[in-house]
């Protein structure tokens, strides 16, 4: 008996020892970047006095992470930060990774504990700018970027340094201010398996009818014609098709010309315009075009994978069971670098819908739905040294880092380390594999982004009901009924929260009447 007890206790001790070893906090050596400086006196570094500790969420460029498990850990951003710290010895930049859940964001921001520089879609921030959680960056953007050489873009105004001006300017919030720095661009594309296309003598489609025909043929040849997921449908799909069907109506329904953003977005419909239009009968059961959107989406979905919520879509494309895959430019990282891909692939943009496919479409090119990828906002945490934007030194450091980061050399270094996105800085070029997306980004910006217009509740209902409709569990009428109620409650909520005044719109609406006279397919109340 005693031997057994001794054995048991011994094992316990061993286990405890292993656990302590495993759990022991690692030394600071965990830092990823090798020291680039060749100075032997690097010990002097630890002696410097750090006055400002800045926490930044780098998003996809987090040093030390391995993007898509391919290649080496990232280090470019760390090198940029190290160089910045050499220029500003009183500052230390710490990169943190945070969940992108809105609930988390709200809690952190409201208690002032959020990181100083956040990386979120700026549309999410717009909902909260009136609470003072974000710092408007206009005053800095209108001044020169101190790290840029004289004469180069950005040396007069930081604004000029951005390559895709339209999209960048379009990121201004409804209150007219700019809350983010757009470092890079993303776009979506339909990746396709060139080998399969060759085998079946198929060509890249030039319009939607050819596209559907193509998918039909692929289905008959026993491939999954295209891989779609639910998120793509209610986010990208909805916006793309909406633009295809409603763009021609804009002269008659674009009520507000936002002086700051309109020039670049050319007719974007904001939440207030959408609310007003809803009152006139748009987006209800009577709206023929609205109905048509869902019909087109459903028909498209029928050629796709059975399970829209599947987690293994990439697997199907990699093992060549599926011929096409609609996803974003970040997949280039995987497709161009993973050794598992043993076929030739290409990418094309969704083709326009001709009027022969839908009476409300006119065949104009599909718009851009991507745009800004890494958007960096400075939160109110940054001004916690003085509490005031005008006097905060911490804020100035944060701004300086962002200015430093958007210097062409640095931006290229960081963004091109991964084949995800295209740098948004003049004087840089994207990774060669991403060049096709550069072309796509030259298109016109989308008419509206449903996903960002209303609140989470709207999104929740949209997601759930769209899935049921796409899978055939509810009919188009039931779906429209849900959508109608959903838009109704979303518009009333947002009207209450933001105190919507619609009288100006009424006036404008009457003014635009002559444009609407000849438009077909408008709901009754909209003439």
């Amino acid at each position, binding site marked *: 008996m005693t031997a057994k007890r001794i054995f048991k206790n011994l094992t316990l001790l061993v286990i405890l020892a292993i656990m302590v070893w495993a*759990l022991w906090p690692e030394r600071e050596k965990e830092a990823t970047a090798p020291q680039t400086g060749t100075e032997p006196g690097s010990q002097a570094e630890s002696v410097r006095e750090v006055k400002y500790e800045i926490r930044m969420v780098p998003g996809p460029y987090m040093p030390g992470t391995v993007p898509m498990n391919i290649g080496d850990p990232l280090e470019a951003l760390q090198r940029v930060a190290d160089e910045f710290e050499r220029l500003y010895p009183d500052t230390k930049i710490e990169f943190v990774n945070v969940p992108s859940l809105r609930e988390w964001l709200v*809690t952190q921001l409201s208690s002032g504990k959020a990181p100083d520089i956040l990386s979120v879609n700026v549309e999410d921030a717009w909902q909260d700018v009136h609470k003072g959680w974000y710092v408007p960056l206009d005053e800095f953007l209108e001044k020169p970027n101190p790290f840029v050489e004289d004469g180069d873009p950005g040396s007069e105004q930081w604004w000029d340094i951005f390559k895709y001006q339209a999209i960048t300017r379009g990121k201004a919030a409804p209150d007219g201010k700019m809350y983010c720095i757009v470092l890079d661009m993303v776009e979506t594309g339909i990746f396709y398996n060139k080998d399969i296309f060759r085998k079946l003598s198929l060509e890249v489609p030039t319009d939607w009818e050819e596209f559907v025909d193509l998918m039909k043929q692929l289905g008959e040849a026993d491939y999954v014609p295209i891989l779609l997921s639910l998120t793509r449908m209610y986010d990208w799909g909805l916006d793309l098709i909406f633009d295809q069907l409603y763009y021609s109506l804009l002269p008659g329904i674009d009520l507000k010309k936002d002086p700051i953003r309109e020039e670049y977005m050319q007719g974007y419909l904001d939440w207030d315009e959408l609310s007003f239009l809803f009152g006139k009968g748009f987006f209800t059961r009577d709206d023929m075009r609205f109905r048509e959107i869902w019909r087109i989406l459903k028909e498209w979905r029928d050629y796709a994978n059975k399970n829209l919520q599947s987690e293994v879509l990439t*697997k199907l494309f990699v093992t060549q069971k599926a011929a096409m895959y609609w996803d974003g430019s970040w997949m280039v990282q995987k497709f161009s*670098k*993973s*050794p598992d891909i043993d076929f030739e692939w290409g990418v094309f943009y969704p083709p326009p819908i001709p009027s022969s496919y839908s009476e409300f479409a006119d065949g104009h090119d599909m718009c851009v739905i991507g745009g800004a990828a890494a958007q960096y906002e400075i939160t109110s945490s940054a001004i916690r040294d003085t509490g005031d934007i005008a006097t905060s030194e911490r804020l100035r450091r944060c701004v300086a880092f962002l200015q430093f980061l958007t210097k062409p050399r640095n931006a290229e270094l960081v963004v091109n380390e991964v084949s995800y*996105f295209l740098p948004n800085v003049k004087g840089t070029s994207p990774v060669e594999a991403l060049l096709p997306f550069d072309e796509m980004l030259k298109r016109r910006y989308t008419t509206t982004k449903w996903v960002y217009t209303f609140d989470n509740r709207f999104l929740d209902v949209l997601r759930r009901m769209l899935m049921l409709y796409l899978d055939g569990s509810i009919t188009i009428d039931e779906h429209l009924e849900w959508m109608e109620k959903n838009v109704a409650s979303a518009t009333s909520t947002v009207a209450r929260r933001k105190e919507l005044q619609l009288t100006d719109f009424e006036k404008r609406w009457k003014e635009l009447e002559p444009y609407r006279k000849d438009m077909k397919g408008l709901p009754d109340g909209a003439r």
Partner: protein
Amino acid sequence: MVRKRTIAIHAILMVFVVWTLIPFLFVINNSFRTTSELERSFFGLPKSLGRMATFTLYELTGKSDKIVIRTEVEGDNDWGSGGQTEMKTLEYGDSMRLLWQDLTSGYRLSWKDLRPYTLNTFFVCFITVCGVICLGSISAYIFSRYKFPGRSFLFVCVLSVMMIPQVLTLVPSFLLVKKMNLLNSYWVLILPYVAGGQIFAIFLFKSFFDGLPQDLFDAAKIDGAGHFRLYWNVVLPLSKPIISVVAILNVLGTWNNFLWPFVTNTDPKYHVVASGVYVIGKVLEGTDTVTNLPAMYAAYVLSSIPLLILFVYATKPFIQGVSAGAFKA
């Protein structure tokens, strides 16, 4: 006759056992495979393991030149095709190292994230269990052995808390801790856990204390034991089984509690294992999420190990405690 019956019983039990344990076996197996392996096929043993065995065989039989591994070629890759690979002959040691890396990549990745979570959970667990046992046993002792006005009323008060469903208090508790500025800290977890855990502990302890014979106390009092002595030297040692049960239940409860940490501690620094496991393996890629399967599976395995250790050493006391009447409702 008896034998046939026993065999039948064993058969049925084994079916249950197998059905219960199979998913976990798959998890363990898959945690050692690489993402590309998992993408190809769900079933199968870890390739790296097989290769390690074959290469060892080659090395031992002198065929070391057969040790080849597919590695990626450095440099730019053509647009429109995948990463280039080639077969390279490697030293035995190098190949073993590479294969070992593949085998454990999931574990290394997830442990990087999981380690602080585990530390957090240990800390919270420890303090909670101490708090619950202290407060629980003391309060139960007082309820059990002392008469004072309002005693039954107060006791019922405390017990009635068990009737309050968590669902009702979730939102107000959250608002409360937000006001108290406790969000994203250890206390936001510890305090409510102790508050809730002690209720059941009081209940268990009290039933046990009630069952202790009065002579025990009389004898001790004759020996000159004061109140504290009674508690510390007489009652507590006897309650060891109950203490184990309470401790184990609270450790389990704290370890498993997902919703509250998830909602209150959203800073990764304060994540516990339960909420951490939920986010692990989903690496934020671009504007989308891609699941890193081996890391996820490894995370599940790793998060079970501490409890496994607890299990090995605590089952006997637990069963003893349960038999000592902890669950005689």
